[in-house]
């Protein structure tokens, strides 16, 4: 199931903080869909160390959609929308 968060109007490091909070509470089979205005490079390193994987889709130069799931959670991974 999709959990959604829009961080596009938040100032750093709030997007990172909110995303990490959401990920803490992520259930088995769920993935997090993040709407952001830029690609959150520092986030990737943090979530990777904590056992998450991600896919980023650039919808427009100021709109990135990032999907995050637990690396070993195949059910969550399969339910993620494919990139265009």
């Amino acid at each position, binding site marked *: 199931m999709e959990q959604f968060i829009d961080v*596009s*109007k938040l*100032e750093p*490091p709030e997007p990172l903080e909110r995303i990490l909070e959401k990920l803490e509470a992520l259930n088995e089979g769920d993935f997090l869909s993040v709407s952001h*205005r830029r690609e959150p490079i520092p986030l*990737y*390193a943090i979530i990777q*160390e904590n056992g998450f994987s991600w896919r980023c889709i650039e919808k427009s130069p*100021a709109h990135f959609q990032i999907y995050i799931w637990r690396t070993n959670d195949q059910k969550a991974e399969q339910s993620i929308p494919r990139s265009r």
Partner: protein
Amino acid sequence: MLNSATLSLEQAPPISVPFRFFLTAPLFAAFAGLLMIYYGEGLFVSRWMPSTLAFVHLLTIGFLAMVMCGAMMQMLPVLAGVSVPRALLYASIVHLFLIFGTLFLVAGFIYSDSLFFTLALFQLGVGFGLFILLIVVTLLRVKVKNNTVKSMWLAIIGLLIAIALGLLLAQSLISPFDGFRPAMMTDLHLSWGLLGWIGLLVMGVAFQVVPMFQITPEYPQSAQRFLPLALLISLAVWSLGVVYEVNLIQELSGLAVIIGYLLFALSTLILQAQRKRKVADITLLFWRIGMLSIVASAVLIALGKLFPEIISQSEFTFLMGGFLIVSFALSVINGMLYKIVPFLTWFHLQQRNLALPREKRVKLPNMKTALPDRVARRQLIAHITMLVLLFAAIFQPQWFARAAGVALFVSSMMLWWNLIVVTRSYRAYSSKLLRRAAGA
């Protein structure tokens, strides 16, 4: 993408690398304030007064270059995904040499002593030389060639030229050599320092930081790609025009430099007006002052073209210096510190917190609580007071010069204290994390 992403965290240098520069810089600005209190109207007699040159270098090297060096050593690894080799060791050397080099230079001006100039020449030569070398070696290893990285290349070229000219000028004060034109060299030196180094670096940083922290739209891609390079080339052509005394070349390339910086200032102001979040922001206000100062200096140059008789007056030169060094560069850097220092604090704590097992993690403070806006706002008010008094002092030095010095001292010490407060909160959480890691 994945590689650069994983690198960006691991490659960040220890927090003490940038912080040693950030916490030293405001003290030099405060020192400049003391110098202004001591010399009063004497600082405003002519731009060639030794005490005036001492004052200016306390601001340009002691404050501006000091912060820029720290910021570059920190930002480059995070933005570009490479680490500065042996960051801690080299940062300590660069930092110490810049401190002593600046102090010796100031002493050299004040006491007109060639021994002090010799020491300054050595210290600043080694300090800046090592810094430039480090950044060049790091830039050569960068895998992601984004627009900020390109601007850093150009800014480091600007710094190299500014420093080389500065060292030559210092050498000419120790032992004058034949055919040396100090006035011309000084103009080239300050143009490269302000418009080649500081200006281009601010621009490169702005391309990243303004959209990111001030939540504005992105700068136009074409501006990001071509503006810094166009400016550097124009500056180089202008310099050749100055050296070979070709008036037409000087006029045209000078105009190109002014238009380039005007475009940057105006596009920044327009982007800031389109902010998605309407909450007042201290850094934004500092940046607005800075960008308006670029516009003001362009207006001043236009006035100088219309009424050529004003150019030779000392007020004209002091206004230009005031706009570019103090109300542009000082404001922008001051404002930037309020974003990067709390952010780096949070970033480093967060990194260490996440390295702990989940049950040992600490709830970290929100970035805003480390330095509340109202505290930074008080310093902004002191800074604006300083600017008003400084510009008043250009026209009535006997009335306002000392008051401007007091305001500069107070504003700089307030900035320093605010940064100390953030550092203390870092220390408090840092030791908490250490205790957790040790098993408490």
